[in-house]
């Protein structure tokens, strides 16, 4: 609507996204509690807000579509129609489309109008004529100002370029209501506004209603006026002066001088037919508007005549969109984050403390002698304390509650239940658990996959469940919680559990296992993460294509996390994702090899040992091994992996750090351990290139660069056998 408001677009899209998810969440809850009026009001308000602001910002498609949704919601609110599953379906699909529309508006693309028309038609149908509706529903489908757009345009076309109309004269007689002042209205304003329109040539006041002083209420208006106005403005301009009072007043506006309507010839553009008909009095403006509202787009007409199919139309529209000359998409997506003001206040507070400490230190530095060493150390400790706290708080800004991801799953489970004919409910807890924004953004897809998996493979059909003595409705539990320095997300179902025999058979068939091989349960469960592995009897829309679980695992590992499976036949399956709190800072142990310092992520360290000669063994083809309890682990010499000279070569004189990643262990040989510290991870790939066995680099206190070890990578190095001492 106005470019001046364009600066509010980003805020609008953010706010709308919240409203859309509120609508979605509300609709799902509404199915459970169809008579909850407050819930309906909440949904309605969200739609209403989007509509209002979208209109202001000129996103007409969004405003128009939301209007249709709102109309249906309003009917629900008024109790004219009731909540049914098909109705919820339509509203949910409309919500999806609204999301698409908003995305399209944000990236300045056009959206698929065929879908819009289909959905709008359905929304209207539900709003007007579900079987439960009483017949005489007075149509609430007042065309909104936006829908009347074309009419406004043709009216402008008719009046443009016309010479100034001649001055006309009106008699205006106005009797305001007695409660005029109680509505905050001021008659004086009315006269001023009339004066702005032209020249007020005569004002007469009617005092006939004025009571005697004793019975007069000074807060009531007893007066009436007659005004003669000479103006070149149209009559509706005068009417608009009285806009806020006319419904409570007695108002007549009459043209008093004979009309001198010597209209000039029609402007350059020919008049539209509707306009001519209105002018000649053959139809009213309202009737014209109504007719225009029924005008259909060519695509709709062709579909109605069954000349083309909706698919063909959609394709044609797509082609049109692609070949449109200005079809460039402009995606200005400033990555923004909303931060609780309390967090910001805390930060400012901390910065204040840091400044105080700094000024104390510089004060001390200005007149320092060795007697003040203790004081210096004390201040340094304080500085360290400040810095660490500031760091934690700043990291906290990037932390978002995981509920923002979880909120999309109730819908998913509802849709899945509808598709595969099972009964299931999703139980969510721990949604307030906070997680780094980057992790939050990447966790959605893996979680979606695991939930689909539980719904399709894990949970049984209602009949099966009843036969097994379980409640008909299956449950999927989604839980987030802190454990140590990590976040755990558990996806748990009470279904049939993983089918050990089926997985084994499949693994043998795919050549992953020999038939007679004796494998542990954990090993069997790990097989489901193999690429292309699926035991679903048939491929469904939901899952079973064998793509996914391996991707889930890869994605989680890319985030520095792990996936674990616990399953019991007949009782259910539980996947646990363990993720680091943040990706940017880790606790590490610094170690030396030769003259170099390396950082070992603390979470991967199992223990450190200095082996005796009897614990060491060399096996041809497997290289150097060390015994830890009853297991032999490969030894990786860091000095050889990274080509560092002057390192200790005798394992019994060096230190072996037993590192663990996803239940596989490796012994890494280092010279000495220096100590524990927090390090900021800097990407090596962005600044240099990928190095096997290195997760990244960090800058140490003295300014030198140190590698951060990647245990997975080192394990692979160990398994390849290169650089393994032999």
């Amino acid at each position, binding site marked *: *609507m*106005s470019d*001046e*408001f364009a*600066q*509010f677009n980003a*805020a*609008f899209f953010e*706010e709308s996204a919240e409203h859309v998810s509120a609508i979605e969440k509300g609709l799902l809850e509404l199915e459970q509690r169809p008579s909850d009026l407050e819930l309906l009001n*909440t949904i*309605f*308000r969200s739609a*209403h*807000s989007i*509509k*209002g*602001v979208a*209109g*202001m*910002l*000129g996103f007409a498609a969004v*405003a128009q579509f939301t209007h249709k949704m709102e109309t249906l919601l309003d009917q629900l609110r008024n109790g004219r129609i009731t909540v049914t599953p098909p109705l919820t379906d339509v509203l949910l699909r409309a919500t999806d489309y609204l999301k698409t529309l908003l995305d399209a508006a944000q990236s300045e693309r056009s959206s698929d109008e065929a879908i819009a028309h289909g959905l709008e038609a359905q929304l209207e149908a539900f709003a007007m004529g579900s079987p439960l509706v009483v017949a005489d529903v007075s149509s609430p489908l*007042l065309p*909104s*100002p*936006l829908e009347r757009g074309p009419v406004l345009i043709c009216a402008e076309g008719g009046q443009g370029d016309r010479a100034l109309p001649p001055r006309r004269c009106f008699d205006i007689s106005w009797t305001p209501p007695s409660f005029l*002042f*109680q*509505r*905050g*209205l*001021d008659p*004086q*304003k009315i006269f*001023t*506004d009339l004066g702005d329109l032209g020249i007020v040539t005569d004002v007469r006041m009617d005092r006939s209603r004025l009571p005697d002083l004793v019975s007069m209420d000074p807060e009531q208006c007893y007066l009436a006026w007659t005004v003669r106005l000479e103006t070149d403005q149209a009559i509706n301009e005068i009417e608009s*002066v009285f*806009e*806020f009072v006319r*419904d*409570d007043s007695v108002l007549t506006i009459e043209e008093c001088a004979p009309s001198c309507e010597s209209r000039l010839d029609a402007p350059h553009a020919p008049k539209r037919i509707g306009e001519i008909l209105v002018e000649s009095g053959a139809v009213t403006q309202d009737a014209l508007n109504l007719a225009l509202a029924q005008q259909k787009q060519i695509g709709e007409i062709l579909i109605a005549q069954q000349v083309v199919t909706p698919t063909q139309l959609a394709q044609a529209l797509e082609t049109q969109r692609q070949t449109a000359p200005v079809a460039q998409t402009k995606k200005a997506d400033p990555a923004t984050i909303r931060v609780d003001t309390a967090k910001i206040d805390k930060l400012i507070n901390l910065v204040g403390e840091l400044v105080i400490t700094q000024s104390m230190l510089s004060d001390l530095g200005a007149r320092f002698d060795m007697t003040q060493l203790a004081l210096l150390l004390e201040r340094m400790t304080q500085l360290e304390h400040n810095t660490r706290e500031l760091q934690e708080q700043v990291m906290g800004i990037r932390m978002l509650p995981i509920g923002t991801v979880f909120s999309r799953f109730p819908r998913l489970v509802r849709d899945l239940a509808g598709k595969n004919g099972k009964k299931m409910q999703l139980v969510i807890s721990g949604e307030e658990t906070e997680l780094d924004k980057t992790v939050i953004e990447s966790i959605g897809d893996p979680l979606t996959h695991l939930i689909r998996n539980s719904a399709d493979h894990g949970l049984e059909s209602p009949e099966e469940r009843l036969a097994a003595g379980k409640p008909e409705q299956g449950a999927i539990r989604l839980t987030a919680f802190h454990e140590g320095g990590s976040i755990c997300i558990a996806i748990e179902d009470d279904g049939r559990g993983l089918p050990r025999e089926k997985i084994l058979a499949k693994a043998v068939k795919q050549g992953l296992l020999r038939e007679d091989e004796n494998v542990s349960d954990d090993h069997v469960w790990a097989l489901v993460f193999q690429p292309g592995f699926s035991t679903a009897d048939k491929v469904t829309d939901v899952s079973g294509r064998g793509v996914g679980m391996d991707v889930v695992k890869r994605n989680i590992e890319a985030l520095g996390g792990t996936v674990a499976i616990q399953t019991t036949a007949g009782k259910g399956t539980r996947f646990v994702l363990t993720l680091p709190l943040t990706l940017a800072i880790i606790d590490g142990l610094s170690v030396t090899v030769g003259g170099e310092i390396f950082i070992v992520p603390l979470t991967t360290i199992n223990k450190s040992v200095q082996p005796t000669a009897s614990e060491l063994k060399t096996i041809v083809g497997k290289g150097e091994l060390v015994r830890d309890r009853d297991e032999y682990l490969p030894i990786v010499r860091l000095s050889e992996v990274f080509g560092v000279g002057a390192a200790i070569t005798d394992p019994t004189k060096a230190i072996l750090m037993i590192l663990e990643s996803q239940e596989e262990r490796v012994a890494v040989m280092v010279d000495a351990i220096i100590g524990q510290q927090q390090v900021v991870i800097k990407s090596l790939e962005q600044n240099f290139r990928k190095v096997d066995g290195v997760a990244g680099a960090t800058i140490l206190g003295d300014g030198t660069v140190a590698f951060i070890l990647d245990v997975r990578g080192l394990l692979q190095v160990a398994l390849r056998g290169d650089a393994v001492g032999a």
Partner: protein
Amino acid sequence: MSQTVLIVDDSVTMRDMVAFTLTGAGFQVVQAGDGKEAMGKLATGAKPDLVVTDLNMPVMDGITLIKAIRKMPPLRFTPILMLTTESSEEKKAEGRAVGATGWIVKPFSPEQFLKVLKKVLPA
């Protein structure tokens, strides 16, 4: 001294847009997210020359707010504008009945908004 406008709307974006328009035109702006918050600001001494309120809001809606404001002696004659989406007669009538001065139909441009403002603001 510049005049103060209290803007009440649950949509932050809408409030921001109105506030932007108003400050641009030299007004002081006080904001509230719903009727209750607005009443809180009025109770603690905010004395607007004009109130602009949305109707459909959580906690306390616009109609209830207008009623409440008209009961406060210093604000009995203060102009109150309602923001509505439809030019719905029903809503307008309801607003008039409880003492609303006027209304603005969304969507509106800054110019339209200021024009309506001028209509009701005391000189």
